[in-house]
């Protein structure tokens, strides 16, 4: 058993070095593809920080002063519920100060100065309003009414704050996702081709192996390991790139003026590690799949 494993790794390494140019191309392509996959995930997450308070078709947020009395809050609640033709009252959501503070932690993740000024005591609570109507003018006129209610600090409309970012985010997601998928397919194809070439270069050896009774798996495994290694190295390279990219971005964003929203576009380091882990898995899988297809199809030499 140990002899077999040693054999597989020895053969993998020999073949890996023999085809250095093709191998480098395959690794580089998978690295770039995976870098794009990772970037997509990070961008998505960064935008989410900004969009988290608008999740679930929320179109209007009524911020309630932190010193508002329970009676004032009840009155605001009542006013909002009094327009059931415009507002979906079932989806009306009230976030108390603690919940709002939790949310703020995400919105201001890249803006510790602003976050430090907020506490669960001085933060406004908020009503999240989901409209039924398709007419933004109606929602806007309602917002004017709510603004004049006692205890209301401000009313924010998604139209003003969110739609540009949302559209941008969807566009960026689609483009990067499509690009990374295409590149991933290219990477699998290149790994496939590298393995096919490696097998072709060793067809005499494979012929002899088959004649003396080596099993197909025995012949196949070194090639599959080689493909897996290519995908994995590509993934490691892309993880490095992703880390560098994210560090540069986080540092760059830190220089922006607080409160512009741009500073929210960062990801927590735990999420970065998770994305890297996912990328390593995708890389290894892509390599193994590409080489497995090649090894199965070209074993009959």
């Amino acid at each position, binding site marked *: 058993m140990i002899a077999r494993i040693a054999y597989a790794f020895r053969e993998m390494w020999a073949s890996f070095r023999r085809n250095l140019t093709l191998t480098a191309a395959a690794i580089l392509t998978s690295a770039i593809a995976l870098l794009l996959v990772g970037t997509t995930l990070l961008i998505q997450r960064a935008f989410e920080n900004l969009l988290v308070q608008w999740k679930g078709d929320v179109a209007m947020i009524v911020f309630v002063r932190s010193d508002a009395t329970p009676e004032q809050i009840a009155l605001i609640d009542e006013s909002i519920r009094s327009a059931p033709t415009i507002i979906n009252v079932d989806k009306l959501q009230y976030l108390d100060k603690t919940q709002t503070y939790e949310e703020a932690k995400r919105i201001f993740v890249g803006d510790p100065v602003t976050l430090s000024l907020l506490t669960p005591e001085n933060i406004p609570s908020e009503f999240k309003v989901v409209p039924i109507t398709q007419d933004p003018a109606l929602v806007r006129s309602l917002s004017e009414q709510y603004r004049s209610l006692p205890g209301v600090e401000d009313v924010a409309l998604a139209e003003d704050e969110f739609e540009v970012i949302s559209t941008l985010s969807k566009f960026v997601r689609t483009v990067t996702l499509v690009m990374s998928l295409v590149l991933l397919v290219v990477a699998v194809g290149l790994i496939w081709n590298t393995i096919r070439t490696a097998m072709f270069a060793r067809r005499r050896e494979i012929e002899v192996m088959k004649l003396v009774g*080596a099993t197909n798996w025995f012949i196949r495994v070194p090639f599959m390991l080689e493909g897996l290694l290519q995908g994995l190295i590509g993934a490691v390279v892309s993880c490095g790139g992703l880390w560098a990219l994210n560090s540069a971005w986080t540092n760059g964003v830190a220089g922006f003026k607080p409160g512009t929203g741009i500073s929210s576009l960062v990801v927590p380091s735990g999420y970065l590690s998770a994305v890297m882990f996912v990328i390593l898995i995708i890389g290894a899988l892509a390599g193994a799949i590409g080489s497995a297809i090649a090894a199965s199809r070209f074993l009959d030499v």
Partner: protein
Amino acid sequence: MIRLENVTKRYGSETVAVRDASFDVAKGDFVFLVGPSGSGKSTILRLVNRQERPERGDVWVAGQNVNDLPDSRVPFLRRNMGNVFQDYKLLSGKTVFENIAFALEVIGKPRHVIARQVPIVLDLVGLAGKEDRFPNQLSGGEQQRVSIARAFVNRPLILLADEPTGNLDPATGEGIMSLLDEINQTGTTVVMATHDHRVVNAMRRRVIQLDRGVIVRDQERGVYE
């Protein structure tokens, strides 16, 4: 040991390689398959080691119907037979020792077995002391000996040889034949395809003659004609 029952094999729809061939080879036999090029000799060898499957009829090896064997069992069938070819099929990047060891390595034999078996078989084929040479540093006859050593190192029940003397001068071919004879003496069944009159006539063993895929003669102690 080997039995063909009414075996027919065609390549494509036109070319009939073997037509309705039947014969029986007992354990320890030495059989020549003779006939001109394209008469079906190589095809019969390829049917026996399951590189080809017959269109009709059955091929039996060591009591097993080779046609019924699932693909995953074919490697284990082949571990019972050694193959020798006209062009040796040695790996040029490996030394003599490595070429022979390779046959054991790829069927998962541990290193100490390889270290013990290879020198024994090198000695048998008369190449002791040349284990570190590469194939292109050897004469044709020596290369064929390496290939025979590789085929025999696993002590197979059957040795299939396809024109093993085809690329060699008569004197060297004689040496190869006496080596095959020696291997046959150990109880290994040998089937050899050839159109070399001299070796067939000198050996006086069983001869199965083919003509355009049909067996036209099956004779004990035969000559080539």
